[in-house]
């Protein structure tokens, strides 16, 4: 779940790590090559040199994960939630239930008299394992070239071909700090930032520690009201018009997914702060109002190392880019 940083104080999640020494042979040959490679744009490359960072190699890590089949998440196994209707979720796990407001009268076999939102920790753990393994491999490559840090990190996840597997891919440009020493724990620091944004961060008195990322997954079993609002059929029960109303169950599920992602990341920060947070939510609509909401939050864990230098006076300019 967490990308281990150079000076990890141990107060965050330990994170998943991949096995050591499992880089492919071609990686070793490439990293031993004579020229450096870098995924930096030219302006970022120039800014990198200006800051005294020397690019040494483009480093990357991968992990292909099989996503387990979750009976609880399948539309064919409604009711097989990890927490029974009205039951208590384990401590720290989000879950809330909804009951039919129509007097308990069952209009048909398909009338959904209950619904539930619940967190899927097993999905989050699988994501953390895939991300953590890919990250560890990138760090291993960076270690092989003697890098002090990795800048301009980009991570992607995608479904592979037509199989039920997901690939995690993380890459970045390994750099050496000119005249700098080995980072604490000999583990390179990492950051999503590069170029001007990294220069401004350092100028502002912060140093990057590591990239942090987490996924929160919430499953929505819609109850009758949510189903009807989503399908536009509530008028059957509420008269001849469709009132404008909030779909409360979905709103709360979306809020919960974002909030959980933030909590996961917070757990990885220790006493440091998060810079450049990016939150991406994906919703997979199933049927009858059922949904899976997955929310990924990523950013760079940063630590203050000096007082903020006063910024020079700004001057207007016209860019040629």
């Amino acid at each position, binding site marked *: 779940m967490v990308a281990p940083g150079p000076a990890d104080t141990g107060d965050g999640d330990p994170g998943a790590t991949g096995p050591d020494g499992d*880089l492919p042979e*071609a990686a070793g040959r*490439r990293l031993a090559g004579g*020229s450096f490679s870098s995924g930096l744009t*030219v302006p970022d490359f*120039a800014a990198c040199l200006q800051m005294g960072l020397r690019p040494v190699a483009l480093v990357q890590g991968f992990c292909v*994960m099989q996503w387990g089949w979750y009976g609880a998440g399948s539309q064919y196994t409604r009711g097989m939630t990890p927490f029974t209707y009205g039951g208590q979720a384990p401590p720290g796990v989000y879950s809330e239930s909804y009951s039919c407001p129509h007097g308990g009268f069952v209009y048909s076999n398909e009338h959904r008299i209950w619904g539930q939102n619940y967190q899927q920790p097993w999905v989050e753990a699988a994501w953390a394992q895939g991300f953590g393994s890919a990250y560890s491999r990138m760090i291993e490559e960076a270690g092989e070239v003697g890098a002090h840090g990795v800048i301009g990190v980009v991570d992607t996840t995608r479904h592979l071909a*037509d199989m039920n597997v997901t690939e995690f891919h993380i890459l970045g440009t390994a750099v050496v700090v000119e005249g700098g020493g080995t980072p604490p724990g000999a583990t390179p620091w990492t950051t999503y930032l590069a170029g001007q944004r990294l220069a401004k961060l350092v100028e502002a008195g912060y140093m990057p520690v590591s990239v942090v990322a987490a996924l929160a997954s919430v499953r929505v079993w819609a109850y009758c009201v949510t189903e009807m609002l989503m399908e536009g059929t509530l008028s059957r029960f509420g008269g001849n018009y469709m009132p404008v109303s909030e779909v409360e169950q979905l709103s709360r599920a979306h809020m919960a997914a974002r909030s959980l992602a933030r909590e996961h990341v917070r757990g990885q920060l220790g006493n440091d702060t998060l810079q450049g947070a990016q939150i991406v939510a994906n919703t997979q609509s199933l049927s009858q109002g059922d949904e899976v909401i997955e929310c990924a939050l990523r950013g760079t864990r940063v630590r203050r190392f000096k007082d903020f230098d006063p910024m020079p006076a*700004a001057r207007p300019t016209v860019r*040629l880019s």
Partner: protein
Amino acid sequence: MTQPQDLPKEAGHRLEELEHGLFTSDLSVNEFLLIKEAGFHPLGFVMGSSIYHTGIQARRWSKSQELTKLTEAMYNARELAMTRMEEEADQLGADGVVGVRLDVNYYEWGRDAAEFIAVGTAVKAEDGTSHRNKLGKPFTSDLSGQDFWTIMQTGYVPQGLVMGTCVFHIAHRGIGQTLGTVGQNVELPNFTQALYEARELAMTRMQDEANTLGATGIVGVRLEEKSHQWGSHTIEFLSLGTAVTKGTGDVTLPKPITVISLDN
């Protein structure tokens, strides 16, 4: 390797006209300004093309493997297009080609055939010094005019657009494999290693090209993945970047200044 006579007759006529002072380019106004600022002037828009039959290669349903024939074909086709573009630039007496774009197009009339096109703007140093690469050819680069100016400010000089490719077949999963891991969140090491290997091979080949040019490094590396027309289990991993060498003179990088953009 193509010979200059490979170029079509019309290319010769067009390039002859350019030799009389008129220039063409796909540079934007800002790029044009910065190319001039860097001490170069555009000579002409140059291109190279190759229509290539990519053929087929047997692949095993359950085996992840590099499809070497296809890798070779994709590589050769791009090389042909690039070489023809370089020949056009050479004919203009250019020092290099900037803003190179490499595209692959498929046409309805040619099943299994693809057109590989390389286009860019040939440039020449205004002070007459040669900026050709170690092989005596005009340098090529996919850098924009802005990036070209910036890289020159850092003391690095483009040597060539370098690339590496690897066409890889990803195995299908058998029933036994699928059943063996059903319901589990597990890494699939065979797939991880296969994809890892494929990308590393592409990047290694790109670095080998850079080493041939005597480059110090490669900037702006891009890793592209396309299935073209082969189906989802066969993927081309293409690694591209501009090889650069450190210039001989000492360069002091200007200290950045804070600016307020008036663009927005």
